[in-house]
């Protein structure tokens, strides 16, 4: 269990870290590390691996919106069923159940604001459990998943010091 956690912590920071390197850091056999990672993937503890990209630097202007959604919970299943339905749309990146003044927080990406407006009006609001939506567009990203977007990364230390 401890070992699993240590592997996950390393992969959470750097998904590209090779089993060989993980084995070196944790003083373990590489084969054993591979087996554990495979099992964690099978058990859906590791859901996948993605890359944090600063698209803006490439000149790609995608649009991201965070939508506060109020929904009517259903008998037996509460928010589960509607949340699952919302998750199915490919343009939906994240869905969270929230405490506070609304119920679901839905993160949606599209190429233009129009795409998102269309998604909200045609897909989201039309679900019968959805009572209301408030859409917030992301204007600029400063930090995401531990990465700061504009921070210069150069090493300012003297190259040799005692």
């Amino acid at each position, binding site marked *: 269990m401890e070992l699993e956690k240590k592997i996950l912590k*390393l992969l959470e920071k750097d998904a590209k870290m090779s089993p060989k*390197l993980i084995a*070196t*850091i944790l*003083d373990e056999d590489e084969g054993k590390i591979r087996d554990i990672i495979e099992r964690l993937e099978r058990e859906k503890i590791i859901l996948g691996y993605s890359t944090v990209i600063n698209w803006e630097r490439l000149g790609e202007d995608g649009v991201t919106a965070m939508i506060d959604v109020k929904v009517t919970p259903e008998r037996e299943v509460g928010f589960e069923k509607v949340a699952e339905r919302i998750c199915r749309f490919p343009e939906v990146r994240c869905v969270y159940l929230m405490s506070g003044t609304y119920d679901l927080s839905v993160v949606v990406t599209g190429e233009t604001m129009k795409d998102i407006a269309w998604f909200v009006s045609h897909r989201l609001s039309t679900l019968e459990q959805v009572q209301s939506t408030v859409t917030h567009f992301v204007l600029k990203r400063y930090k995401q998943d531990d990465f700061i977007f504009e921070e210069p990364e150069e*090493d300012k*230390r*003297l*190259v*040799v*010091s*005692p």
Partner: protein
Amino acid sequence: MNSMQNYLADTVKSIPPSGIRRFFDLVTQTKGVISLGVGEPDFVTPWHIREACFYALEKGYTMYTSNSGLLELREEIANYMKKKIGVEYSPQREILITIGVSEAVDLALRALLNPGDEVLVPEPSFVSYAPGTVLAYGKAVSVPTYFEDEYRLKPEVLEKYITPRSKILILAYPNNPTGGIMEKEDLEKLRDLIIKNDLIVISDEIYAELTYNGGHVSIASLPGMRDRTIVLNGFSKAYAMTGWRIGYACGHPDIIAAMTKIHQYTIMCAPIMSQMAAIEALRHGESEMRRMVDDYNNRRKIILSGFKEIGLDCFEPKGAFYAFPSIKISGMSSEEFCEKLLMEEKVAVVPGNAFGANGEGHIRCCYAASIKNIEIAIERMGNFLARHRKG
């Protein structure tokens, strides 16, 4: 321009410039170098500590503090020392805040040495103890430590260098440049010899938080050693605060008072904003510090396994963030090795002889570098060794 050499003080002329300096110039002239030659963390000071400094400036803390440093900081240090090494110091009389451990070393030597007194300096060691001794009109006596002993100081070796003029023993563990440590039983073996010969110990414990197989033990915690030990520590390595220049000395009130006297006439006090940042570091810096130490440990393992793969002989360094492999298989001197490695493969490491004559045949590699850079450096060193391996 006329030479002014004749005007310079003899003592200053007698000490050689730092061996690292020449190498530094060489490295800065070369482009695209991956450096394992630095002696400081690759992290920037944790944000909450930097914020404490902004706050201090905003509130107008821009004045002198007492010579000894902010009492609040000395109180935090007293708590820390009690927890860390199990020794109690009075914040009022037994703790002095200095400009990094470097100043504390200088103060301690000047406070204790009469002309001709001898200082035992186990080598390889950090570069300032011997010159500091000479500047205080003492005599530095190198005491070798050996690769085979993982650079622990052995009493049977130390004994050979003790004379009636011996007054101070420098202990700097976890060690720069070797990464060696002294465990409790190693220190216990030294204790009788130190007491028998009435030595004072200057224990530079700046890397105390950077140990990887069990915690750090200070010689001050052994019976009979507290009053004859000056423990030096600071914030540079543990909290990635090298540029803040904050260190401290803990010891017997007579010695601390003597050090404070020199400090008050030469330095006055450490910068107040750095002192306030240091308070924040001790109060809330533990978790970020642990995270950094865990990261060093990961990289320590990577560099060691890399050395093994390319055939460089290295004992397991259990402290600081340096590895000190032998370069015997290259058949080169450490300076030749480092220069060629720099020119041919663009990797900077520091020649072992910069840390004392018996560091010859070794190189210091600092693993406070990104995993990627360590991997590239190892690969390049492997290529280098493939070309230059002797026998």
